[in-house]
């Protein structure tokens, strides 16, 4: 337990240091750090609408953070969440367009299921390549991101382009696929894009925690990550476990479609993701790959994203890019705090 607390403490230390350094930069630029901080906080949490938007940004980050974390616990580095979520979102939309007349209580879940399957498949490929062919998943997931991007833009223009608009996007999905029509969370936040997807993401995070720490399969997955050889010696099929882990990671990345498509705009737009897949790596890192921690670190990144929006208007010198700088500093400082623990045992 104290190990857990220690790592929590280190994360917070890194976080405080990162934000502090970011504000110091703002100070150097000529803005009052307190003012900048209050602008960010107010913009992220100032009104119901702000909170709703923050939650909307945080939702996909929970999913991609979980995706990275699950792979990490199996000893793999999933840099491919971006590609997985793009293809999954497209598959989700395509399924909805292909079967327009499902009843509303099942339609969103059917579409989501198709998306997750697609994501799982796209995640499984590098898992298979790694375990059967020995080629490294970092290289493969990165390359599959490019392939996914190319596939998606080709598929949109070739098959699902909405002829009434210039932008590369699909037609609107049927009303029955919208969470909005009955979503109590969306009603709570009015115009803000928050949806049922957020509580569902939190629920999934809890489920993943239970899976990893309270089921035999999660135990096997983690064993593959902590000591591959010991896991194999204990009779665990490391190759198969890792393939499943990557498929699960892909499916989690695919869940991004829930908030973005079904709970959000209701159609697939090319380039809808502002690199949720990559920010997910940072989210998982900050949370030290703990599913519950990921909820909070996704909220932080969501808040920074939303909070930065008003920096352009409300401050004299700094721009919204400060948010990116702070994100980067937080990651560096958290990594630093982690390294700091490793020191000091030699002498």
């Amino acid at each position: 337990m104290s190990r857990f607390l220690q790592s929590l403490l280190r994360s917070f230390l890194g976080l405080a240091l990162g934000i502090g350094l970011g504000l110091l930069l703002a100070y150097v630029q000529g803005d009052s750090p307190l003012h900048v901080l209050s602008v960010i906080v107010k913009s992220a949490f100032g009104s119901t609408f702000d909170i709703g938007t923050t939650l909307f940004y945080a939702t996909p980050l929970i999913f991609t953070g979980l995706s990275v974390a699950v792979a990490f616990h199996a000893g793999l580095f999933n840099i491919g969440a971006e590609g997985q979520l793009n293809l999954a979102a497209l598959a989700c939309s395509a399924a909805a367009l292909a079967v327009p007349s499902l009843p509303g209580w099942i339609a969103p879940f059917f579409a989501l299921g198709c998306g997750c399957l697609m994501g799982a498949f796209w995640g499984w490929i590098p898992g298979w390549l790694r375990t059967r062919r020995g080629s490294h998943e970092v290289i493969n997931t990165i390359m599959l991101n490019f392939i996914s991007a190319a596939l998606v833009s080709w598929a949109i223009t070739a098959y699902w382009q909405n002829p009434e608009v210039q932008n590369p996007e699909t037609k609107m999905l049927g009303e029955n696929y919208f969470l909005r029509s009955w979503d109590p969370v969306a009603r709570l936040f009015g115009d803000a894009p928050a949806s049922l997807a957020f509580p569902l993401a939190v629920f999934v995070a809890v489920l993943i925690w239970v899976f990893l720490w309270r089921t035999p399969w999660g135990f096997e997955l983690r064993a593959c990550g902590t000591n591959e050889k010991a896991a194999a010696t204990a009779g665990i099929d490391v190759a198969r476990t890792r393939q499943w882990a990557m498929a699960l990671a892909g499916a989690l990345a695919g869940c991004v479609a829930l908030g973005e498509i079904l709970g959000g705009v209701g159609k697939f737009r090319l380039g809808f993701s502002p690199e949720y897949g990559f920010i997910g790596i940072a989210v998982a890192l900050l949370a030290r790959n703990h599913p519950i921690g990921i909820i909070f670190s996704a909220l932080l990144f969501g808040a920074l994203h939303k909070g930065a929006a008003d920096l352009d208007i409300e401050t004299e010198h700094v721009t919204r890019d400060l948010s990116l700088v702070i994100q980067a500093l937080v990651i560096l400082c958290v990594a630093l705090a982690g390294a700091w623990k490793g020191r000091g045992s030699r002498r």
Partner: protein
Amino acid sequence: MQKNSSQIELRGIRKVFGEVVANEDVSFSVRKGSIHAIVGENGAGKSTAMKVLYGQYAPDAGEIFVGGEKVSWRSPADAIAAGLGMVHQHFMLAGCHDAVDNVMLAAGGSAFGVLDYKNARVRLESLMKEFHMEARLGVPVDRLSVGEQQRIEILKLLYRDSSILILDEPTAVLAPSEIDALFATLRGMAASGKTILIITHKLKEVIALADAVTVFRAGRVVGERPVKGSTVSELASLMVGRNVSFDTGGERQPPGSDLVLELRAAQPVKKLERLGSMSFRLHAGEILGVAGVEGNGQTELIQLLLHPRENLESGLYSLLGNSVAGLRSRELRDAGLALFPEDRLNEALLLSESCEDNFLLGHQRDSGYRRQGVLLDRFSLRADFARAAEEFDIRPGTPQAIAGTLSGGNQQKLVVARELASRPRFLLAAQPTRGVDIVAIESIHARILELRQSGSGVLLISSELDEVLKLSDRLLVLYRGRVVGSFLRKEFDEKKIGLLMAGGHA
């Protein structure tokens, strides 16, 4: 103090890590030109003391004298410059380079940055002649035998004129004949004025080789004496702090006739090329020992037995009368196999995880640890672990303790407890007591004998010949992947077996 005779002296060394006192008031001295043994159980503080002496750790208190002068190292480089040299248990060689390269790498420095290979080679050859050490030059060292690699390690130190040599468990990887050769070399070096410190846990070798011995226990020096007149059992009780029995557990019932394991012309896949075709049988209530110097196919034999689906090319492999040739290793475990892995740190444990998680490893799908089919039952796991920790005397017995922080002996007891929890019919015990203290060795040996008594078959693979001789009912000698000898317990002959292990003919 007799300044002239004591080459090394440690006075009142204290070293603390966090809350653990690794060394407390450690004082001893080593005569110039002598062979001095440092003995103690794992965790007794002998390695820490050596690292302090070698400059790897800075002592929290105390003084070190070398050649009568007080020294204080900032790093091992200072110690090396003062003539100290260390042969680590795990060799520090650049594997794809030959002996000359390795020696020069260690010596470092050269005029104007130009390396003089020719001179180095000449000098190395003369050293080899002087100390009767043979090692092939011009061959990458990782293609040489372990004995040769060790000789190169020693030559590295001689090459840079080290006058004080520290050897950490030098005999762990050697065949009996190689051990004799090493001892002859070390005696020659001592005679020529070098001072030799040897860290070991094999007391027989201390008696055979050393002039003086310092015994460590619980971070302190509990005895320092000339070897002449000391006995193994005397040193052992000093080390452990109580009397130790060396008997083999009294009367033995003869093994049963039921077959537990049978290999008939079992041919491993090409990947395991170090192992030839295997044929042998193991009966219920029998311990079959496999003796041999490490690297003669033991690892491959374990892989073959553990993963037949991947590693068995052809031939028969049956367990309890059923062919298991196509099975996965989990299915084998379900069929009654248990394993003490050869390499505890890499193959047996999740070092960063808790003891209870390590106790669960391999049993995670057992119905006894499931609730509602899908959830792990942490309560019964914890209860079982508590019982096992008590029964097997695992310390600390807290379920949340991180496995990597346990001592070697306790880690191994954890592995033993876990593997025996399923009451296996066939136990594959590979190097069951490697790096483990005497008390733990006794207890692990007792467990293995107990399992034999209960009618299970045990295949004991160990590079410690004494261990194989003590426990086995029957013994096979493995050399270059083949069984080159087979002995019944009443025919055991240490000399003959030792000869076969080294590739000779009995």
